[in-house]
Protein backbone atom coordinates (compact mmCIF):
# COMPACT_ATOMS: atom_id res chain seq x y z
CA UNK A 1 0.00 0.00 0.00
CA UNK A 2 1.24 3.44 -0.88
CA UNK A 3 1.77 6.20 1.63
CA UNK A 4 -1.11 8.61 2.19
CA UNK A 5 -1.53 10.74 -0.95
CA UNK A 6 -0.24 14.29 -0.91
CA UNK A 7 -3.23 15.27 -2.97
CA UNK A 8 -6.56 13.62 -3.51
CA UNK A 9 -8.89 15.11 -6.10
CA UNK A 10 -12.41 13.72 -5.76
CA UNK A 11 -15.07 14.32 -8.44
CA UNK A 12 -14.43 18.02 -8.82
CA UNK A 13 -16.38 20.12 -11.28
CA UNK A 14 -16.04 23.59 -12.69
CA UNK A 15 -18.05 25.84 -14.95
CA UNK A 16 -18.02 29.55 -15.57
CA UNK A 17 -21.16 31.66 -15.73
CA UNK A 18 -20.58 34.79 -17.78
CA UNK A 19 -23.10 37.32 -16.54
CA UNK A 20 -21.97 39.93 -19.04
CA UNK A 21 -22.80 37.46 -21.84
CA UNK A 22 -26.43 37.00 -20.78
CA UNK A 23 -25.53 34.37 -18.24
CA UNK A 24 -23.78 32.12 -20.73
CA UNK A 25 -22.60 29.00 -18.94
CA UNK A 26 -19.28 27.49 -19.95
CA UNK A 27 -18.76 24.02 -18.54
CA UNK A 28 -15.07 23.21 -18.08
CA UNK A 29 -14.67 19.85 -16.33
CA UNK A 30 -16.75 17.47 -14.25
CA UNK A 31 -16.02 14.35 -12.22
CA UNK A 32 -12.26 14.88 -12.11
CA UNK A 33 -10.69 12.34 -9.77
CA UNK A 34 -7.08 11.31 -9.22
CA UNK A 35 -4.44 11.15 -6.51
CA UNK A 36 -0.82 12.16 -6.25
CA UNK A 37 1.73 10.35 -4.10
CA UNK A 38 4.96 11.67 -2.61
CA UNK A 39 7.86 11.34 -5.05
CA UNK A 40 5.59 11.16 -8.06
CA UNK A 41 5.20 13.44 -11.08
CA UNK A 42 1.84 13.30 -12.82
CA UNK A 43 1.15 15.07 -16.10
CA UNK A 44 -2.28 16.37 -17.03
CA UNK A 45 -2.87 15.45 -20.64
CA UNK A 46 -5.29 16.59 -23.30
CA UNK A 47 -5.59 19.29 -25.94
CA UNK A 48 -5.78 23.04 -25.27
CA UNK A 49 -9.11 23.97 -23.77
CA UNK A 50 -9.61 20.61 -22.08
CA UNK A 51 -9.40 22.28 -18.66
CA UNK A 52 -5.88 21.36 -17.56
CA UNK A 53 -4.93 24.83 -16.35
CA UNK A 54 -8.30 25.22 -14.67
CA UNK A 55 -7.68 22.03 -12.67
CA UNK A 56 -4.30 23.37 -11.47
CA UNK A 57 -5.90 26.69 -10.56
CA UNK A 58 -8.64 24.95 -8.60
CA UNK A 59 -6.07 22.96 -6.64
CA UNK A 60 -4.21 26.19 -5.85
CA UNK A 61 -7.48 27.87 -4.82
CA UNK A 62 -7.14 30.46 -7.54
CA UNK A 63 -10.38 29.23 -9.13
CA UNK A 64 -13.40 28.19 -7.15
CA UNK A 65 -14.49 24.57 -7.16
CA UNK A 66 -18.20 24.04 -7.86
CA UNK A 67 -18.42 20.46 -6.62
CA UNK A 68 -16.26 17.73 -5.17
CA UNK A 69 -13.23 17.81 -2.86
CA UNK A 70 -9.56 18.64 -3.19
CA UNK A 71 -7.83 17.19 -0.17
CA UNK A 72 -4.29 18.28 0.57
CA UNK A 73 -2.30 16.62 3.32
CA UNK A 74 -1.09 19.08 5.96
CA UNK A 75 0.53 17.13 8.75
CA UNK A 76 -2.12 14.80 10.10
CA UNK A 77 -4.86 17.00 8.70
CA UNK A 78 -6.55 16.78 5.30
CA UNK A 79 -7.52 20.26 4.17
CA UNK A 80 -10.25 20.54 1.54
CA UNK A 81 -9.25 23.36 -0.79
CA UNK A 82 -12.79 23.44 -2.19
CA UNK A 83 -14.12 24.76 1.11
CA UNK A 84 -11.06 26.11 2.96
CA UNK A 85 -11.34 29.61 4.42
CA UNK A 86 -9.11 32.20 2.71
CA UNK A 87 -6.79 32.41 5.70
CA UNK A 88 -6.34 28.64 5.76
CA UNK A 89 -5.75 28.62 2.02
CA UNK A 90 -2.98 31.21 2.29
CA UNK A 91 -1.25 29.10 4.93
CA UNK A 92 -1.65 26.02 2.77
CA UNK A 93 0.00 27.84 -0.12
CA UNK A 94 2.85 29.00 2.04
CA UNK A 95 3.53 25.61 3.57
CA UNK A 96 2.11 22.90 1.30
CA UNK A 97 1.38 23.97 -2.28
CA UNK A 98 3.82 25.66 -4.62
CA UNK A 99 2.81 26.88 -8.04
CA UNK A 100 4.68 27.84 -11.17
CA UNK A 101 2.24 29.80 -13.28
CA UNK A 102 2.53 30.14 -17.02
CA UNK A 103 3.34 33.82 -16.83
CA UNK A 104 5.11 35.87 -14.23
CA UNK A 105 2.97 38.57 -12.68
CA UNK A 106 5.44 41.37 -12.44
CA UNK A 107 5.59 43.58 -9.38
CA UNK A 108 6.81 47.11 -10.04
CA UNK A 109 10.22 47.94 -8.59
CA UNK A 110 10.97 44.51 -7.11
CA UNK A 111 14.26 42.97 -8.27
CA UNK A 112 14.28 39.53 -9.89
CA UNK A 113 16.44 38.17 -7.06
CA UNK A 114 13.88 39.30 -4.46
CA UNK A 115 10.97 37.95 -6.49
CA UNK A 116 12.67 34.55 -6.32
CA UNK A 117 13.74 34.82 -2.66
CA UNK A 118 10.34 35.90 -1.40
CA UNK A 119 8.84 32.45 -0.63
CA UNK A 120 11.83 31.72 1.62
CA UNK A 121 11.54 35.11 3.32
CA UNK A 122 7.88 34.33 4.02
CA UNK A 123 9.04 31.11 5.70
CA UNK A 124 11.29 33.18 7.94
CA UNK A 125 14.63 32.39 6.28
CA UNK A 126 17.20 35.18 6.82
CA UNK A 127 17.36 37.62 3.85
CA UNK A 128 21.03 36.93 3.01
CA UNK A 129 20.49 33.16 3.02
CA UNK A 130 17.31 33.49 0.95
CA UNK A 131 19.05 35.70 -1.62
CA UNK A 132 21.98 33.30 -1.78
CA UNK A 133 19.62 30.40 -2.57
CA UNK A 134 17.81 32.56 -5.12
CA UNK A 135 21.11 33.46 -6.78
CA UNK A 136 22.18 29.83 -6.92
CA UNK A 137 18.93 28.84 -8.64
CA UNK A 138 19.11 31.71 -11.12
CA UNK A 139 22.69 30.71 -11.91
CA UNK A 140 21.56 27.16 -12.60
CA UNK A 141 18.86 28.51 -14.88
CA UNK A 142 21.46 30.60 -16.73
CA UNK A 143 19.93 33.97 -15.92
CA UNK A 144 22.81 36.46 -16.27
CA UNK A 145 23.82 38.01 -12.97
CA UNK A 146 23.54 41.52 -14.40
CA UNK A 147 19.75 41.01 -14.52
CA UNK A 148 19.32 39.90 -10.91
CA UNK A 149 18.83 43.33 -9.41
CA UNK A 150 16.47 44.52 -12.13
CA UNK A 151 12.69 44.16 -11.94
CA UNK A 152 11.71 41.45 -14.46
CA UNK A 153 9.17 43.69 -16.25
CA UNK A 154 11.53 44.30 -19.16
CA UNK A 155 12.85 40.72 -19.37
CA UNK A 156 12.16 38.48 -22.35
CA UNK A 157 9.51 35.78 -22.06
CA UNK A 158 12.12 33.10 -21.48
CA UNK A 159 13.92 35.14 -18.84
CA UNK A 160 10.67 35.84 -17.01
CA UNK A 161 9.79 32.18 -17.10
CA UNK A 162 13.11 31.24 -15.54
CA UNK A 163 12.48 33.76 -12.74
CA UNK A 164 9.06 32.17 -12.31
CA UNK A 165 10.49 28.64 -12.25
CA UNK A 166 13.15 29.64 -9.71
CA UNK A 167 10.49 31.23 -7.51
CA UNK A 168 8.41 28.07 -7.64
CA UNK A 169 11.26 25.67 -6.98
CA UNK A 170 12.93 27.62 -4.17
CA UNK A 171 10.10 26.87 -1.73
CA UNK A 172 9.88 23.72 0.33
CA UNK A 173 6.25 22.90 -0.26
CA UNK A 174 5.79 19.16 -0.78
CA UNK A 175 3.21 19.65 -3.54
CA UNK A 176 4.22 21.57 -6.64
CA UNK A 177 1.91 22.59 -9.49
CA UNK A 178 3.56 23.36 -12.82
CA UNK A 179 1.74 25.11 -15.66
CA UNK A 180 3.93 24.73 -18.76
CA UNK A 181 7.19 25.42 -16.92
CA UNK A 182 9.31 24.92 -20.04
CA UNK A 183 7.08 26.52 -22.70
CA UNK A 184 9.39 29.39 -23.62
CA UNK A 185 12.73 27.81 -22.69
CA UNK A 186 15.54 26.64 -24.96
CA UNK A 187 16.82 23.06 -24.81
CA UNK A 188 19.59 23.81 -22.28
CA UNK A 189 17.21 25.45 -19.82
CA UNK A 190 14.56 22.78 -20.40
CA UNK A 191 17.15 20.27 -19.29
CA UNK A 192 17.76 22.29 -16.11
CA UNK A 193 14.03 22.27 -15.31
CA UNK A 194 13.92 18.51 -15.93
CA UNK A 195 16.77 18.12 -13.42
CA UNK A 196 15.02 20.35 -10.89
CA UNK A 197 11.88 18.23 -11.18
CA UNK A 198 13.89 15.04 -10.68
CA UNK A 199 15.47 16.52 -7.54
CA UNK A 200 12.07 17.45 -6.12
CA UNK A 201 10.82 13.92 -6.77
CA UNK A 202 13.88 12.46 -5.09
CA UNK A 203 13.20 14.71 -2.10
CA UNK A 204 9.71 13.20 -1.79
CA UNK A 205 7.72 16.04 -3.30
CA UNK A 206 4.75 15.36 -5.53
CA UNK A 207 4.45 17.30 -8.77
CA UNK A 208 1.44 17.85 -10.96
CA UNK A 209 2.11 19.52 -14.26
CA UNK A 210 1.09 20.48 -17.74
CA UNK A 211 3.83 19.78 -20.27
CA UNK A 212 2.99 20.32 -23.91
CA UNK A 213 6.49 19.40 -24.94
CA UNK A 214 6.36 15.60 -25.37
CA UNK A 215 10.06 15.16 -24.70
CA UNK A 216 9.88 17.00 -21.36
CA UNK A 217 6.76 15.07 -20.42
CA UNK A 218 8.40 11.77 -21.20
CA UNK A 219 11.44 12.75 -19.16
CA UNK A 220 9.59 13.77 -15.98
CA UNK A 221 6.12 12.23 -15.81
CA UNK A 222 5.49 8.87 -14.14
CA UNK A 223 1.99 8.77 -15.59
CA UNK A 224 -0.50 10.91 -17.45
CA UNK A 225 -4.00 11.75 -16.34
CA UNK A 226 -6.07 12.34 -19.48
CA UNK A 227 -8.30 15.31 -18.83
CA UNK A 228 -10.53 14.78 -21.89
CA UNK A 229 -12.36 11.99 -20.08
CA UNK A 230 -13.55 14.59 -17.53
CA UNK A 231 -15.00 17.01 -20.09
CA UNK A 232 -18.18 18.59 -18.83
Amino acid sequence: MDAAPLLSVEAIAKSFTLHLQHGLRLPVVAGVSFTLQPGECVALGGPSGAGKSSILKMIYGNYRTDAGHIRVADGTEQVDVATAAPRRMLRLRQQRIGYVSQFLRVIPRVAALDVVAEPLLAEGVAPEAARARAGALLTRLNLPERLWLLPPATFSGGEQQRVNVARGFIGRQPLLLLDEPTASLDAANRAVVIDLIAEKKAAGCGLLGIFHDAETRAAVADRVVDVTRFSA
Partner: protein
Amino acid sequence: MTSSAMPRPKADDEAPLLVAEKLTRFYGARLGCREVDLTLHPGEVLAIVGESGSGKSTLLSLLSTELAASSGRVLYRQRDGVTRDLATLSEAERRLLLRTDWGFVRQHAEQGLRMAVSAGGNVGERLMAVGGRHYGAIRQQAIDWLGRVEIEADRVDDDPRSFSGGMRQRLQIARNLVTRPRLVFMDEPTGGLDVSVQARLLDLIRSLVAQFGLAVVIVTHDLAVARLLSHRIMVMKSGRVIEEGLTDQVLDDPREPYTQLLVSSVLVP
Protein backbone atom coordinates in the same frame (compact mmCIF):
# COMPACT_ATOMS: atom_id res chain seq x y z
CA MET B 1 -2.33 34.60 -10.68
CA THR B 2 -0.82 35.05 -7.31
CA SER B 3 2.82 35.09 -7.92
CA SER B 4 3.13 38.51 -6.40
CA ALA B 5 5.93 38.76 -3.89
CA MET B 6 3.39 39.70 -1.32
CA PRO B 7 3.94 38.99 2.33
CA ARG B 8 1.60 36.43 3.73
CA PRO B 9 -0.09 36.54 7.10
CA LYS B 10 1.64 34.79 9.94
CA ALA B 11 0.94 31.10 10.21
CA ASP B 12 -0.37 31.19 13.77
CA ASP B 13 -3.98 31.09 14.78
CA GLU B 14 -4.10 34.19 16.87
CA ALA B 15 -7.41 35.64 17.89
CA PRO B 16 -8.86 38.23 15.51
CA LEU B 17 -7.73 41.81 15.94
CA LEU B 18 -10.84 43.46 14.58
CA VAL B 19 -14.34 42.09 14.21
CA ALA B 20 -17.35 43.88 12.76
CA GLU B 21 -20.81 42.47 13.29
CA LYS B 22 -23.82 43.47 11.21
CA LEU B 23 -22.43 46.96 10.80
CA THR B 24 -25.08 49.28 9.40
CA ARG B 25 -25.21 52.99 8.79
CA PHE B 26 -27.99 55.12 7.38
CA TYR B 27 -27.66 58.78 6.49
CA GLY B 28 -31.22 59.80 7.21
CA ALA B 29 -33.20 57.50 4.96
CA ARG B 30 -30.25 56.88 2.65
CA LEU B 31 -28.21 53.75 3.14
CA GLY B 32 -24.46 54.05 3.78
CA CYS B 33 -23.73 50.40 4.38
CA ARG B 34 -25.78 47.47 5.57
CA GLU B 35 -25.07 44.45 7.75
CA VAL B 36 -21.37 44.14 7.06
CA ASP B 37 -19.54 41.35 8.90
CA LEU B 38 -15.80 41.13 8.82
CA THR B 39 -12.90 39.61 10.72
CA LEU B 40 -9.32 40.76 10.49
CA HIS B 41 -6.35 38.93 11.97
CA PRO B 42 -2.91 40.33 12.82
CA GLY B 43 -0.81 40.71 9.69
CA GLU B 44 -3.77 40.41 7.34
CA VAL B 45 -4.43 42.91 4.57
CA LEU B 46 -8.08 43.28 3.57
CA ALA B 47 -9.05 45.33 0.53
CA ILE B 48 -12.52 46.82 0.23
CA VAL B 49 -13.31 47.58 -3.39
CA GLY B 50 -16.28 49.05 -5.19
CA GLU B 51 -17.19 52.15 -7.12
CA SER B 52 -17.94 55.60 -5.68
CA GLY B 53 -21.02 55.45 -3.51
CA SER B 54 -20.71 51.72 -2.87
CA GLY B 55 -20.35 52.32 0.87
CA LYS B 56 -16.68 51.42 1.18
CA SER B 57 -15.64 54.74 2.70
CA THR B 58 -18.60 54.67 5.06
CA LEU B 59 -17.50 51.22 6.19
CA LEU B 60 -13.95 52.46 6.80
CA SER B 61 -15.27 55.38 8.85
CA LEU B 62 -17.39 53.01 10.93
CA LEU B 63 -14.49 50.63 11.56
CA SER B 64 -12.20 53.46 12.57
CA THR B 65 -14.82 54.99 14.91
CA GLU B 66 -15.02 58.20 12.91
CA LEU B 67 -18.68 57.50 12.34
CA ALA B 68 -21.15 55.95 14.75
CA ALA B 69 -23.03 52.92 13.49
CA SER B 70 -26.82 52.96 13.19
CA SER B 71 -26.64 49.35 14.34
CA GLY B 72 -24.11 46.58 14.71
CA ARG B 73 -20.78 46.79 16.51
CA VAL B 74 -17.01 46.77 16.12
CA LEU B 75 -14.78 44.79 18.47
CA TYR B 76 -11.05 45.40 18.81
CA ARG B 77 -8.47 43.36 20.70
CA GLN B 78 -6.21 45.76 22.56
CA ARG B 79 -2.51 45.26 23.21
CA ASP B 80 -3.36 44.03 26.70
CA GLY B 81 -5.36 41.20 25.10
CA VAL B 82 -8.73 42.59 26.18
CA THR B 83 -11.33 42.78 23.43
CA ARG B 84 -13.45 45.93 23.59
CA ASP B 85 -16.62 47.04 21.90
CA LEU B 86 -15.38 50.30 20.40
CA ALA B 87 -18.67 52.06 21.08
CA THR B 88 -17.96 51.74 24.80
CA LEU B 89 -14.58 53.51 24.71
CA SER B 90 -14.34 56.88 26.39
CA GLU B 91 -13.34 59.77 24.14
CA ALA B 92 -9.86 59.78 25.73
CA GLU B 93 -9.43 56.05 25.13
CA ARG B 94 -10.60 56.40 21.56
CA ARG B 95 -8.14 59.22 20.85
CA LEU B 96 -5.29 57.29 22.38
CA LEU B 97 -6.11 54.28 20.22
CA LEU B 98 -6.17 56.43 17.07
CA ARG B 99 -2.84 58.04 17.93
CA THR B 100 -0.96 54.95 18.99
CA ASP B 101 -2.25 51.49 18.10
CA TRP B 102 -3.91 52.57 14.88
CA GLY B 103 -2.92 54.53 11.82
CA PHE B 104 -5.03 56.18 9.18
CA VAL B 105 -3.55 56.99 5.79
CA ARG B 106 -5.88 59.28 3.85
CA GLN B 107 -6.14 59.90 0.15
CA HIS B 108 -5.65 63.61 0.62
CA ALA B 109 -2.46 64.03 2.61
CA GLU B 110 -3.61 67.48 3.76
CA GLN B 111 -6.24 65.71 5.86
CA GLY B 112 -3.76 63.36 7.44
CA LEU B 113 -0.89 65.77 7.97
CA ARG B 114 -0.48 69.07 9.72
CA MET B 115 0.47 71.17 6.76
CA ALA B 116 1.93 74.10 8.67
CA VAL B 117 4.17 71.88 10.81
CA SER B 118 7.58 70.62 9.67
CA ALA B 119 7.99 67.08 8.33
CA GLY B 120 9.92 66.16 11.47
CA GLY B 121 7.19 67.68 13.60
CA ASN B 122 4.51 65.68 11.80
CA VAL B 123 6.29 62.47 12.67
CA GLY B 124 7.42 63.55 16.15
CA GLU B 125 3.95 64.61 17.16
CA ARG B 126 2.72 61.02 17.24
CA LEU B 127 5.73 60.03 19.33
CA MET B 128 4.95 62.74 21.86
CA ALA B 129 1.40 61.41 22.03
CA VAL B 130 2.79 58.12 23.33
CA GLY B 131 4.94 59.86 25.92
CA GLY B 132 8.14 60.74 24.01
CA ARG B 133 9.65 63.78 25.74
CA HIS B 134 13.32 63.95 24.79
CA TYR B 135 13.60 66.40 21.87
CA GLY B 136 16.84 64.99 20.46
CA ALA B 137 15.58 61.41 20.53
CA ILE B 138 12.28 62.34 18.90
CA ARG B 139 14.06 64.29 16.16
CA GLN B 140 16.42 61.39 15.55
CA GLN B 141 13.55 58.92 15.28
CA ALA B 142 11.71 61.28 12.95
CA ILE B 143 14.77 61.50 10.68
CA ASP B 144 15.10 57.73 10.81
CA TRP B 145 11.49 57.33 9.68
CA LEU B 146 11.82 59.92 6.94
CA GLY B 147 14.67 57.75 5.67
CA ARG B 148 12.51 54.65 5.69
CA VAL B 149 9.97 56.38 3.50
CA GLU B 150 12.74 57.69 1.24
CA ILE B 151 12.62 61.35 2.27
CA GLU B 152 16.05 62.99 2.59
CA ALA B 153 17.08 63.99 6.10
CA ASP B 154 17.67 67.57 4.95
CA ARG B 155 13.91 67.96 4.42
CA VAL B 156 13.14 67.37 8.10
CA ASP B 157 12.55 71.05 8.84
CA ASP B 158 10.54 71.77 5.69
CA ASP B 159 6.80 71.75 5.97
CA PRO B 160 4.79 69.44 3.71
CA ARG B 161 3.33 72.29 1.67
CA SER B 162 6.62 72.27 -0.23
CA PHE B 163 6.39 68.49 -0.85
CA SER B 164 5.11 66.76 -3.98
CA GLY B 165 1.99 64.58 -3.74
CA GLY B 166 3.99 61.37 -3.53
CA MET B 167 6.29 62.79 -0.84
CA ARG B 168 3.32 63.94 1.19
CA GLN B 169 1.88 60.42 1.07
CA ARG B 170 5.19 58.96 2.18
CA LEU B 171 5.35 61.47 5.03
CA GLN B 172 1.83 60.51 6.02
CA ILE B 173 2.90 56.88 6.15
CA ALA B 174 5.91 57.73 8.34
CA ARG B 175 3.71 59.75 10.66
CA ASN B 176 1.33 56.83 11.01
CA LEU B 177 3.86 54.05 11.42
CA VAL B 178 6.29 55.72 13.82
CA THR B 179 4.28 54.54 16.83
CA ARG B 180 4.33 50.96 15.51
CA PRO B 181 0.57 50.60 15.18
CA ARG B 182 -0.97 47.15 14.84
CA LEU B 183 -3.79 48.24 12.55
CA VAL B 184 -3.72 50.77 9.73
CA PHE B 185 -6.68 52.04 7.75
CA MET B 186 -5.96 53.31 4.27
CA ASP B 187 -8.37 55.25 2.09
CA GLU B 188 -7.26 55.29 -1.56
CA PRO B 189 -3.63 55.89 -0.52
CA THR B 190 -2.42 56.08 -4.12
CA GLY B 191 -5.43 57.87 -5.56
CA GLY B 192 -4.66 60.85 -7.76
CA LEU B 193 -0.93 60.15 -8.03
CA ASP B 194 1.06 59.62 -11.21
CA VAL B 195 1.55 55.93 -12.01
CA SER B 196 5.31 56.00 -11.42
CA VAL B 197 4.72 57.68 -8.06
CA GLN B 198 2.01 55.11 -7.32
CA ALA B 199 4.34 52.20 -8.03
CA ARG B 200 6.96 53.56 -5.65
CA LEU B 201 4.38 54.15 -2.93
CA LEU B 202 2.83 50.70 -3.35
CA ASP B 203 6.23 49.09 -3.11
CA LEU B 204 6.93 51.05 0.07
CA ILE B 205 3.59 50.13 1.62
CA ARG B 206 4.08 46.47 0.68
CA SER B 207 7.48 46.23 2.30
CA LEU B 208 6.49 48.12 5.47
CA VAL B 209 3.37 46.00 5.91
CA ALA B 210 5.52 42.86 5.67
CA GLN B 211 8.29 44.18 7.88
CA PHE B 212 5.98 45.18 10.73
CA GLY B 213 3.32 42.50 10.26
CA LEU B 214 0.65 45.19 10.05
CA ALA B 215 -3.02 44.46 9.75
CA VAL B 216 -4.48 46.75 7.11
CA VAL B 217 -7.94 47.62 5.88
CA ILE B 218 -7.50 49.38 2.57
CA VAL B 219 -10.27 51.00 0.60
CA THR B 220 -9.57 51.35 -3.10
CA HIS B 221 -11.41 51.41 -6.38
CA ASP B 222 -8.22 50.25 -8.10
CA LEU B 223 -8.26 46.47 -8.49
CA ALA B 224 -4.55 46.41 -9.34
CA VAL B 225 -3.78 48.03 -5.98
CA ALA B 226 -5.99 45.48 -4.24
CA ARG B 227 -4.23 42.62 -6.03
CA LEU B 228 -0.79 43.89 -5.17
CA LEU B 229 -1.39 44.62 -1.50
CA SER B 230 -4.18 42.48 -0.13
CA HIS B 231 -4.68 38.89 0.97
CA ARG B 232 -8.45 39.09 0.99
CA ILE B 233 -10.96 41.27 -0.78
CA MET B 234 -14.52 42.41 -0.18
CA VAL B 235 -16.55 43.79 -3.08
CA MET B 236 -19.20 46.33 -2.14
CA LYS B 237 -22.17 47.56 -4.10
CA SER B 238 -25.06 49.73 -2.91
CA GLY B 239 -23.91 49.51 0.70
CA ARG B 240 -23.64 45.74 0.83
CA VAL B 241 -20.83 43.25 0.54
CA ILE B 242 -21.73 41.21 -2.52
CA GLU B 243 -18.66 39.02 -2.82
CA GLU B 244 -15.57 38.27 -0.74
CA GLY B 245 -12.69 35.84 -0.54
CA LEU B 246 -9.06 35.36 -1.46
CA THR B 247 -7.98 38.34 -3.53
CA ASP B 248 -6.64 36.40 -6.50
CA GLN B 249 -9.65 34.07 -6.50
CA VAL B 250 -12.21 36.87 -6.54
CA LEU B 251 -10.31 38.76 -9.24
CA ASP B 252 -9.52 35.73 -11.44
CA ASP B 253 -12.79 33.86 -10.95
CA PRO B 254 -15.39 36.51 -10.06
CA ARG B 255 -18.83 35.07 -9.44
CA GLU B 256 -21.18 38.02 -9.07
CA PRO B 257 -22.33 39.96 -12.15
CA TYR B 258 -21.10 43.23 -10.64
CA THR B 259 -17.66 41.82 -9.80
CA GLN B 260 -17.39 40.41 -13.31
CA LEU B 261 -18.22 43.86 -14.65
CA LEU B 262 -15.58 45.51 -12.43
CA VAL B 263 -12.89 43.00 -13.39
CA SER B 264 -13.70 43.17 -17.09
CA SER B 265 -13.64 46.96 -17.04
CA VAL B 266 -9.99 47.22 -16.02
CA LEU B 267 -7.74 48.50 -18.77
CA VAL B 268 -4.63 46.37 -19.16
CA PRO B 269 -1.77 48.24 -20.82
